[in-house]
């Protein structure tokens, strides 16, 4: 293994996976919006042209966030070689 490659593997090993951050934030955002959407007032609804936008956006974000977490769970970042540290 070249020096460059060693350096690369070690940096990769130490860096956390961004999919966890995206998944986490969107699950939390999705949960908040879904809850908010369940209690939308008629004023909220009429502003959004009658669409239950908070509810739908919340559910969509929840699903999106869970997909990212599942992706990370099913295909974890490739394990760095043991001799790289």
């Amino acid at each position, binding site marked *: 293994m070249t020096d460059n490659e060693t350096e690369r593997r070690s940096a990769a090993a130490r860096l956390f996976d961004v999919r966890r951050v995206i998944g986490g934030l*969107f699950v939390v955002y999705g949960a908040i919006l879904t809850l908010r959407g369940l209690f939308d007032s008629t004023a909220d609804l009429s502003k959004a042209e009658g669409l239950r936008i908070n509810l739908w956006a919340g559910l969509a974000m929840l699903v999106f966030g869970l997909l990212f977490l599942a992706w990370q769970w099913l295909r974890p970042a490739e394990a760095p070689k043991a001799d790289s540290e």
Partner: protein
Amino acid sequence: MDPFVVDTLAADGLRLRLDAVDYLLVALYFVTVLGVGFAARRAIRTSVDFFLSGRSLPAWVTGLAFVSANLGALEIIGMAANGAQYGYMTLHYYWIGAVPAMVFLGIVMMPFYYGSKVRSVPEYLRLRFNRPTHLFNAITFAVAQVLIAGVNLFALALVMQALLGWPQWVSIVVGAFIVLSYILLGGLSSAIYNEVLQFFVILAGLIPITVIGLQKVGGFGGLMDAVKGTSLGEAGLHAWSGTGGSDNPLGANWIGIVFGLGFVLSFGYWTTNFAEVQRALSARNMSAARRTPIIAAYPKLLIPVVTVIPGLIALITVQGLGAKEGDLTYNNAIPLLMRDLLPNGVLGVAVTGLLASFMAGMAANVSGFNTVFTYDIWQEYVKKDMPDGYYLRVGRIATVAGVVIGIGTAFIAAGFDNIMNYIQALFALFNAPLFATFIIGMFWKRMTPLAGFLSLAAGSLAALTLYLLYLGDVIKFNSDLEQSFWGAGLAFVTVAIVAAVVTPLTAPKPVEELDGLVYGRAKGMGTEDLLAGDEAWYRNPIALGLFAVALSLLFYIPVW
């Protein structure tokens, strides 16, 4: 300060009524962004970790960061404004004005950038030409980046003042502090991770605007019918059909669009702008580096759905949009739709997306600046051969200095009445001559180092002169936009002529010094460091790139 921008953006009529849930969403985002900075800090041991993420990132991450670094709030607000003002002609900025250049960068130029292991765009110029060329480009780039960071910061302050009533200094201090913190902590890794996160958050904010807006105007069909009845009229629904002359909303003919925007401006911006190229240089291998701008081209194809379409929706639903001043200028299209259409909840997400895109835009400038300052200016011309940890420290100090100068220069932005045009004026000055020098130097290995320097300097000078003559009313153009097309074109031609004249008169570089830097002396096209799975056809940069270009052509058909 120009009273025009300040008045229009600072007016009270745009005020959004955020509630506790909205502020909770904003606060959660800030906490996440800072958390990314702290977590990324652990991965930093060397200067390459700090400036190039240790060249370790997968292509989808660098690709989304690549598009995100361009998806600043100015871009979003400006393109929605253009959508309302020029209609479908705005699509040129996304399709012919971006996708071909991104694909060209990935397929043709990336082997030279990534393959030569340079750490920055100026460093390539040092290897290909000489130190004067390098220093000239390093300094102009560094200056441009802090200027643009200042533009971002100032615009952030104006928008937050208008939307949330925050005093300008609060936005400037908070925005600058957050960007400074996470770059100082995590370097390019946290900038890139936050860009990827921001990409999704800004979409989550813009999609509800588009969906509710379309509901309001009766879907796409209703939107088109309504646009025909506006001042923009039928012409707003065509990208090309009126471009035989200049009698179209953009006032540009097809030659200007294809060569000015599609070639010189676009290739200049996408292929030599280090704030963009840096994302690809942080990829983990050649294949990922080449795919970075190409993966970015796909979202770029679709982003007009959430910028140009909302611009047209605003034209229909906001009575009186397009006023010269006041709340109803084109630049307020997105903020006005947020005010009119979004209930609390998604409103908080949209405000977060806007904040996030301001910060990401600024972070891209700052991370490009600190790298070039450290590697290309300090290490090369001030203090050579120090231990790596020394340059890591210099990089962190440069980050602080860059942000501080950015705050100071924020007010330059106030002197121009259209933020997008101001930024493009900067691109025309710095990018077009740079691109011309690059492309000639890459494909003509006989081009001499002195020719490189003289043509870059002459091209920049030509662009600058034309710009100053235009500002001084000596030469007239129909619009700032037309000036930027011509400035870029003039710079390109100047570079080509100077290169052709000077090269035969001066000594070329020995050809073995050009290995890996010029066409015909390539070091291999990136098959030597492939990772498992990279051979698959869907990871082939050429197939992916050509498909993106084909899509951009297809997309034009319904909006001809």
